[in-house]
């Protein structure tokens, strides 16, 4: 089994007598390995760029306005409602974050199921909790960072360049954006992991997750448009976040995140430079409960589907 040309002279088995860490915090080891593998993928950075695109566009537009525009345009920056702009940018970053979640999460457990990787994990001193938590953290951290870094970068640029035209210098907005960045991380990681655990192929899990994301979005938007048209609302009006129309808008994967963003930022986005097709008011606290319930349910599905006794035989 050994070859005489091998660069290592002694090829006989030698026992490992080195240090072994106690069997705690293995989930971090799993999370690190997941992240290490994912950041090597080109598409990860491509989707990250997509999610940051609106921040980049805004930065370029503001730079051009401030540098090359007429003096009146520079004065007009004082009229910008910055929190609404951050809300808009967060909304536009959703597609990129969802693509990232597909890339990182769809195959997280499904591909392990196909390759019998659970045999490797659970025959080592890892518990089921370590495995599920490690996988979850390995998806949640990159998505959170992908959401937070452009937002904080844009915030830093605005603080440096536009504080004299009314950009808030208080760090509250930055803290709000940091808190907000946790939402896509938690929701996408939970949903992607829960769906991934139901399949043995990452592609199928990805298709299922994309289906859930887009179908829930299209359904709520289309039904919302129909309700808007039949209820006599004028386009551009802000619909209060109550009743069927107001609540339905937030019942998609996208809607939950945008609703929570409105709660955290305290704006409904109606004063942003680019208006959404129809604006719905700030939702109430039930959305936070829905967010937590969906995330917990998805994690529970993953927990139930990972079973140690299936790993042998």
């Amino acid at each position, binding site marked *: *089994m*050994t070859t005489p040309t091998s660069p290592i002279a002694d090829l006989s*088995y030698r026992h490992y007598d080195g240090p072994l860490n106690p069997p705690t915090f293995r989930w971090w080891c799993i999370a690190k*390995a997941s992240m290490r593998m994912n950041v090597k993928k080109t598409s990860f950075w491509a989707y990250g760029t997509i999610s940051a695109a609106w921040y980049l566009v805004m930065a370029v537009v503001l730079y051009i306005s401030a540098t090359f525009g007429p003096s009146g345009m520079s004065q007009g920056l004082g009229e910008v409602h910055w929190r609404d702009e951050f809300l808009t940018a967060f909304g536009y970053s959703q597609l990129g974050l969802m693509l990232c979640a597909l890339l990182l999460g769809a195959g997280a457990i499904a591909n392990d199921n196909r390759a019998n990787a659970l045999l490797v994990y659970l025959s080592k001193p890892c518990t089921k909790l370590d495995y599920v938590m490690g996988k979850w953290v390995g998806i949640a951290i990159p998505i959170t960072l992908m959401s937070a870094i452009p937002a904080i970068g844009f915030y830093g640029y605005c603080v440096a360049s536009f504080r004299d035209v009314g950009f808030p210098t208080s760090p509250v907005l930055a803290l709000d954006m940091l808190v907000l960045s946790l939402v896509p991380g938690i929701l996408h990681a939970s949903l992607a992991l829960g769906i991934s655990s139901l399949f043995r192929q990452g592609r199928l899990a990805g298709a299922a997750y994309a289906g859930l994301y887009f179908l829930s979005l299209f359904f709520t938007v289309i039904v919302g448009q129909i309700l808007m048209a039949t209820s006599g609302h004028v386009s551009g009006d802000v619909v209060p976040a109550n009743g069927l129309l107001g609540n339905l808008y937030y019942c998609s994967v996208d809607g939950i995140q945008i609703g929570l963003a409105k709660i955290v930022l305290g704006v409904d986005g109606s004063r942003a430079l680019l208006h959404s097709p129809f604006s719905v008011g700030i939702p109430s606290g039930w959305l936070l409960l829905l967010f937590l319930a969906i995330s917990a349910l998805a994690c529970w599905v993953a927990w139930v589907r990972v079973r140690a006794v299936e790993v042998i035989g």
Partner: protein
Amino acid sequence: MRTGKDTARGSIVRQVRHAASKVCGVTVASISGLTVRYGAFTALSEFTVDVPEGCTGLLGPNGAGKTTLLRTLLGFLQPASGRAMVFGHDATTEGQTVRQKVGLMPEQDCHIPGMTAVQFVAYAGELAGMPPSEALRRAHEVLEHCGLGEARYRKVETYSTGMKQRIKLAQAIVHGPRLLLLDEPTNGLDPRGREEMLELIRSISHGKGVNVLVSSHLLPDVERTCDRVIVVMGGRLAAESSIKDFKRVDGHPVDVELREPSAAFVNSLATRGGNLLEVRRNTYRVQVSGTPEAVSRTILEAAKEAQAQVRGLTPAERTLEEAFLAAIHK
């Protein structure tokens, strides 16, 4: 940082401990009154056995309970009664501690998708608790040992069946387990690959202080690598002994090989109280009472009287297959 001197000292201590435990009869796993059920089906029933140090074969037909025994030793199953102790740790309540001392080479193909061999084995080491730098160094070492040195930077998905078997072994031994559980280690291997795998298992299990429990349907593989066997049948222990004792025939008969068949030898032996049990060409399986010296003397005297030339005189043995079939039909 550990020095080479520390490593050498650790290795010596380990070998001394292994030798001492052999003398003292220390067991690596102790299973007592173990009953494991899957719903209404009882997979193991009042199973009691001690797995001694060394290389032990786990034999039994399909559905006998071998896999259930391995699952229980890894702490995956909650026994209905009884308990399994591995190195003094209860496998049910201290599963993580047990799994840190145990390596599993499963029957099915398994790998972490998207990883090269060296990444995979190093990751397995980290999961077992090795510091990352040690895990990487050790991954290179065990991959060389398992004959995958040239292919270590290839993704495991691209490996052949034989290479996948080897990498399963590499990930199982990377953290230096004290007990190695091998489930059908030669599955899907061609004759040459099988020989190499058996040689590898033997090199790990003999003189290196690693205890091995091999679950296999292939009796020649077990005979080649193991010192002892545990036979499981219907969830119960059917037999447990060293392979030499396992193959021994009841009553200690002797195989006498003559130069040519001789009826006179049989008659002469009969007058001295010997019984002829079986004849195969010029080999006679006879049973003579008395001490081994007295038995030899009686046979040689009978041969002398019959003017038959004795070519060989050996204690009668069954093949492992015969012994296995006898054990499961007992």
